[in-house]
């Protein structure tokens, strides 16, 4: 009978509609459950005091569970306008110490002035630029803000924004 046919298809559509809305909401909820927890996000800021560093010294600190290389450049090391971080009139290379190839941690060889990744032979110069091997781009620069002699990682200061805008 015609009426019951159309009633049935109405029920079908109604069910389809409700199920779609419910499905979309649950997918969103599931996606968010997999997102990092608020506590994880809040722990994303680290402050380092650079005042005690010597020229040519490399310091590795941890930020968001990633190693950060801070290298205070000495006079022999080539400057790089685009990537150098100037704090208190000294020049630093500040990069995330994870190879941009597959994420291994490159080791610093001071005599050669290179960061060498053992995994697939990638190499980066003192400014963190890839000079050899499979890494597709220079080492990443973490968001930072300069406060006097201190560096706050995780916050985007004006220097960082300028650097990103130019890149």
């Amino acid at each position, binding site marked *: 009978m015609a009426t019951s046919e159309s009633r049935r298809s109405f029920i079908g559509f109604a069910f389809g509609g409700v199920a779609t809305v419910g499905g979309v909401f649950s997918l969103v909820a599931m*996606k968010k459950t*997999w*997102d*990092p*927890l608020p506590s*994880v996000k809040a722990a*994303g800021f680290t402050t380092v005091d650079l005042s005690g560093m010597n020229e040519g010294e490399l310091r*590795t600190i*941890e930020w*968001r*569970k*990633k*190693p950060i290389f801070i290298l205070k450049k000495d006079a022999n090391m080539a400057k790089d306008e685009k990537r150098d971080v100037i704090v208190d009139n000294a020049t630093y290379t500040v990069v995330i110490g994870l190879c*941009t*190839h*597959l*994420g*291994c*941690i490159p080791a610093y060889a001071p005599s050669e002035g290179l960061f060498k990744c*053992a*995994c*697939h*032979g990638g190499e980066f110069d003192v400014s963190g630029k890839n000079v050899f*091997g*499979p*890494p*597709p*781009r220079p080492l990443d620069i973490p968001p930072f803000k300069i406060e006097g002699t201190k560096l706050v990682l995780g916050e985007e200061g004006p220097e960082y924004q300028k650097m990103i805008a130019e890149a």
Partner: protein
Amino acid sequence: MAHITKANGIVDWLDQRLAVKKLMNVLMVEYWIPKQINFLWAMGVILTVLFTVLFVTGLLLVMYYKPDTALAFDSVNKTIMQEADYGWLWRHMHGVAASVIFLIIYIHMLTGIYYGSYKKGREMIWISGMLLFVVFSAEAFSGYMLPWGQMSYWAAQVITNLFGGVPFIGDALVIWIRGDYAVSDPTLTRFFMLHVCLLPIVIIMIIAFHFYALRIPHVNNEIAEELDFDLEAQKYKNGDTKGSKVIPFWPAFLSKDFMYICLFMIFFFYLVCFKFNFAMDPINFDPADALKTPAHIYPEWYFLWSYEVLRGFFFDIGSIKAFDIGLAAFGIAQVIFFLLPWLDRSDVVKPAHARGKFFVWFWILLVDLIVLTVYGKLPPTGINAWIGFGASVVFLALLLVVLPLITRKEKE
């Protein structure tokens, strides 16, 4: 309701309520297997046995394992290995089975390719099998991570990093998968969930589907002869068991499989008792350290071939980055076998040795896979890098170019 009468025994009692006799007939007694198949067809049953071993030993391990980055390493290396009675046995069985199951999967797959068992009518068997392979890989990888040793940690780091190669959303995707900016506790607990809950359920469902898909076009045989299963089965049932070309799965066929299972289990326990180390990377006996990469990262042996395809492309071509080429090639390597029924343009179903060029193609593919596996383990420097590159190119060319060409010729 069916008419229930007083049962004359336990089987009859069950039969009246659950039709167990009919079920046994459908599943086993009247499930027909061609007679002309060799030991390579026993791999399916062996895989079922190995999966059962993994499942049971896994349950025993879960009782002591702790999915927490602070506790995981000790719960495996101390509690399970030293404190729990026979804990070492379950762990070694689990580890060795996880490794050996890939050997058998590869033999199973290559048998399918050799005898053309992916063709004409058997495509769904092949595809469900490939799906199983992919989910098994995810299962193996998520399990590899759980002991939270150095290699586990860095394997997780590298593999999750690969998703960064996805256009536009890559970086966010990596963080989403890890649940943190780097591989850490949330990553461990979610991989734990995948390894012990979600993926096993998916695997069991696909296994059921794989078996079901097998029942309709039936299993292939050594000479790829097309059998009329109904006719041959009728012959068998009429008493002409010699003249019929098929035998029932139970008891006739399985009895032979039991022999292969016995032989295999002897080999398996030999490995578990005397050679378990091959499935245990020494680096994994150092606890995970997020701030120190091991000098040399490589996956377990069964992923080496695709790992080598990933890193085989080590130089940029034009404006395309080496990394992206490698990633694309790696992606292709993961899915290309799914398409085998369509890359093979010929509809001749015959074993490879009766197919001339295809036979040559098959052996070159096998050798190439072995070369990739060997070089996947070696450091990618100097000449090694070039051999890896060559073998990766050969791999892609064999499947994407050579196979369609030679099989189209064959069709003419």
